């Protein structure tokens, strides 16, 4: 059963001068527990698709159904709560909040969720930090961590709310090969052990080859 169904999705960006077609009639089904790689040259619409799946952007035409819910017509608040409950993001540049320490960065999704007590938050953050091997760095600031450690914190943040879907936009793009491999191992563990659905944008053929499926894009169209 697909956890994500994308039907006829197109995205056009319009400015006064120019109209850019970022995605054209994309149809894609992603199964629950699948690890999907999205590949293609820069500007082919990979990130746009990821943003649409993540409810950070809306398609110009077409529909997206996630976990049996149509995303069209959701208001800002509903989208925010839906993202919080169902989706975890991992970004190329980590995007940790510099004013918060590791613990507070990881607990960010829980701060926007109702009914999570302090003790529960502490337990869950400790658990995921333990899992990514950074429990000893809990009180450190992002500036005191290496790139690989930052990305592991970002992954911990993505999973602390226990979402079924993880969207990773070039998660190893800013890391050296060793750290990149560590991050990929972590993502595979989350996929295999937890059964989380992972959609990863990548330029790395080797990493993509290790995932369940590759969707290739060119000029906004899915070519395979």
């Amino acid at each position, binding site marked *: 059963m697909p956890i994500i169904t994308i039907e006829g999705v197109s995205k056009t960006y319009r400015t006064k001068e120019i109209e850019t077609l970022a995605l054209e009639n994309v149809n894609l089904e992603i199964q629950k527990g699948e690890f999907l790689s999205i590949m293609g040259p820069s500007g082919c619409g990979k990130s746009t698709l990821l*943003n649409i799946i*993540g409810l*950070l*952007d809306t398609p110009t035409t077409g529909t997206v159904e996630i976990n049996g819910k149509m995303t069209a017509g959701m208001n*800002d*608040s509903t989208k*925010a*709560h839906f*993202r*919080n*409950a169902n989706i975890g*993001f991992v*970004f190329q*540049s980590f*995007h940790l*909040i*510099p*004013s*918060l320490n590791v613990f*507070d960065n990881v607990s*960010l*999704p829980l*701060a*926007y*969720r109702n009914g999570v007590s302090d003790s529960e938050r502490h337990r869950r953050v400790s658990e995921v930090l333990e899992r990514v091997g950074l429990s000893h760095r809990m009180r450190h600031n992002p500036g005191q961590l290496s790139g690989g450690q930052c990305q592991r914190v970002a992954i911990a*943040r993505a999973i602390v*709310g226990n979402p079924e879907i993880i969207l990773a936009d070039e998660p190893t793009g800013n890391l050296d090969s060793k750290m990149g491999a560590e991050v990929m191992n972590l993502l595979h563990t989350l996929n295999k052990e937890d059964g989380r659905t992972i959609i990863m944008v990548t330029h790395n053929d080797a990493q993509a080859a290790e995932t369940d499926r590759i969707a290739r894009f060119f000029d906004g169209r899915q070519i395979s």
Partner: protein
Amino acid sequence: MKKYLQQIWYEMRHQPLIGIVTLSATALAIFLIMVVVTIQQVKVAPFAPEINRDRMLSGHGMHVKSLSRNEDGSAMAISPAALHELYDSLPGVKALSVYVERNMENISVTGRTSMTAEVLDNDEKFWDIFSFEFIDGKPYDKAAVEAGMKEAVISESVARRMFDTDKASGREIKIAHIPYRVVGVVKDVSPLATAAYAHVFIPYTSQPGNTRASEYGELFGALEAFMLIDEHASIPDIKKEVERRYSILSSRLKKQDQEVLYHGQPYTQEERITSHGSNNTPDTETDRNLRYAIYVILLLIPAINLGSITQSRLRRRISEIGIRRAFGCTRRRVILDILVENFIISLVGGIIGLLLAICFSYFYTGIFSDINPEYPTPQIDFSMIFHTSTFFAALLFCFLLNLISAGLPAWRASRVNPVEAINSVHK
């Protein structure tokens, strides 16, 4: 709360100049506003001995006008008969005190250099309405007032000057060369207590001229009145009753081709300090509107500047806002978080501004010089310039300043497209 403080501390460390400018601008704005608030509070808020200002009414003066001639009419203090007709036994009035406007008189004691002092002629009820601290003796009583006894209550400084001690009860003092017996000594009163201020107090009946009608007519005289109303009494109802009595008086005066004009007596403390003579109705609304306009100007100018600073601070945090949105933060929450953060900064700046305003008011008493301009720089104590309401006023102004300065930047930040916000770090 912790996360807000963390964020503020982080910004303070990383953008100290912006932090200092924000705090200073807030402190300056609140300082200026609170100085204006303090001046007004000294005029209307209760402090000893005028602790009942919020329950005090004053009936002073009467305006009589000819019905047939086109003239402004005459206004002055009233006769005992008029005072009793207008203000006696008003419903809701707990105490009615009769007084005569302060006079500067010669004060002397045998063997001492004489001095001039402010003398207030009043009655025994005066001591119930105002809360004087007696250092020695006690006030004159009803019997003394009814008998027109030559008794006096003097201030501590007069007692020391005339008798070298504040224990002066039983001693003789001459007021305008007439001997009086000192029955009590009270703590000095600040001239800012415009109703109760005087150096010497004597029964109004001890001066025969006070109990007679003036040569200008049976209504005019030397008397005015202070009233202490019950806690739950309705001021509009009391005013309505006095207005009714004015109209009865007016209809009686018709045959003399005269009428009395009602100007809203008896006055509240705010009306009393706004009143300019007995032939005008106090215009508290204009006074209040002027004050509100000053508050708005003092709030708006710094708020616009602070708004630009907040906008600039948020521009640096736009990527963070995008991240928060990605992890489930709603637009409303973005606005709320920014407002709370900003409010904490405003509060710190506001407390600094409030402290500065209190210190400034305490040390630079010249700002109160227009309250009672005939007298030298008044004495100040904290009970005059700081009330619980002062704190809440400062809190309210901080809140407004925060809302005006951060409201629009927060709303704009909440409307930013999350994708653009997240990617903005790369631009």
